[in-house]
């Protein structure tokens, strides 16, 4: 049974457990601190309003990562959102060092980012990612392979 978010303490517990992972996913998509913070908040609010219960903390983490990824994709393409706004946002300095590998990961097309994150950072297998993202295993494999080729080329 997962957390019942009816108290501040329970909400704070889950936030402290998962905020770093959710922040990483959101930053990978949004590429600036301000929008990342917005999407982190949105992700936890979705958890709050969803009434979700989880079998384990792993399940909880996976749900939050996929929800954060989808929320970012939604935010990046909403009707009113314009590409130049996002690019201008990137001028804001992040509170951590961005090295060459991270720059290359951030520059990947958005559709590769959740797959790369889930595989390389969270250690999920291809079948597990396919189940999480509701897509064929072949798509996951192709995206991982293409992402790796792009990273090697850019580095």
């Amino acid at each position: 049974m997962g957390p019942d978010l009816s108290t501040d303490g329970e909400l704070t517990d889950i936030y402290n457990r998962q905020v770093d992972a959710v922040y990483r996913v959101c930053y990978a998509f949004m590429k600036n601190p301000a929008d990342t913070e917005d999407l982190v908040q949105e992700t936890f609010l979705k958890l709050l309003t969803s009434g979700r219960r989880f079998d384990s903390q792993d399940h909880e983490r996976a749900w939050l990562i996929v929800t954060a990824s989808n929320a970012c994709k939604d935010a990046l393409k909403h009707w009113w959102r314009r590409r130049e706004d996002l690019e201008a946002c990137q001028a804001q300095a992040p509170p951590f060092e961005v090295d060459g590998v991270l720059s290359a990961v951030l520059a990947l097309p958005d559709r590769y980012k959740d797959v790369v994150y889930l595989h390389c950072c969270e250690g999920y297998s291809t079948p597990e990612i396919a189940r999480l993202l509701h897509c064929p295993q072949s798509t996951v494999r192709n995206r991982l392979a293409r992402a790796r080729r792009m990273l090697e080329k850019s580095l």
Partner: protein
Amino acid sequence: MREVDTVTNEDIRRALLSVRPDDAARARMLGHIRAAAALEREKAPPPRRRWRRGVLLAAALGAAAGLTAAVAAYETDFFGLWRTDLGRTELEIPKVEADGGITYRVEERERISLQGLAGTPEHQASREWEDFLEQYDPDGTLLEAVGNGPTGISDAYDAYLCYTPEMAEKIDGICAKYGLRLLGPATVEEDVRTLFARTGTGDVCAGSGSNTPWSGYWYRDGTFLFEGAVEQSGGTVDYQFSRAVKGSFGSTPLYLSGIEDYEQWSYTTENGVELLLANDHASKALIIADRERSFVTVNVLGDWSAGTFQMSDRDVEDFAEAFDFTAVP
């Protein structure tokens, strides 16, 4: 950039793990989430970010259980994009400057209805609401007064982002005038196949080719919006799919640079559904279907990774075949 022959998972993991919020950001986000949680527990709407008129106009999608569905009569000669037109308006476009500040520039945009063709109750209602918003609270005084606090307005009006009782009364008046129903609160669905099941529709993504829906939201009458992507011609074409059930009041317009920029033509899918296709060859394409019980619009955003919108008219037709429009009556 360093010279490497291969990039290992560990390289990527190390790079991504370096991304983390600092203590101030961590505390700031938790504070906002806890504040929203407190409001949620009181059954009040959560704090809203960036209340600007442009966002307000764009955020709601309309409808509620509809009984007045005019039977779809396909009049191809008259079924042009102009029949969805809601007129031009000035829109505030936000832009984040290099120093982190946000500025707004005003641009004129054409609005089209996602709810129905001109002459239908849904289209007339959308136009009346748009006209109301054009003149209501022009300097944002009322909006500023409400701020991020609870509005006390029923969640039945969530889709319209009313922030004063006067706005909710206007919505009621429009619904009564045109015989439409409120949409009510939306339900967010991460699994779009579940969204189809909940709205009693079939799998609209079961056309030809690889069509992957991401997530969406739906209303109790079967109105929904979801986003996804279609693998096509070596790229990935992103889209937004809107279904507005007839007989409901939806209020979201779609903004275009201008209808005159679009080439338009009728197209019949391989399984016999007549569509209006439109392509401006520069920023987006549109697919519109006037179904018996709903009005469907697909906003085709193109392949973002390509940097520019590159879809020929034939590409748009192939894209349309990635959907099964018979699944959404």
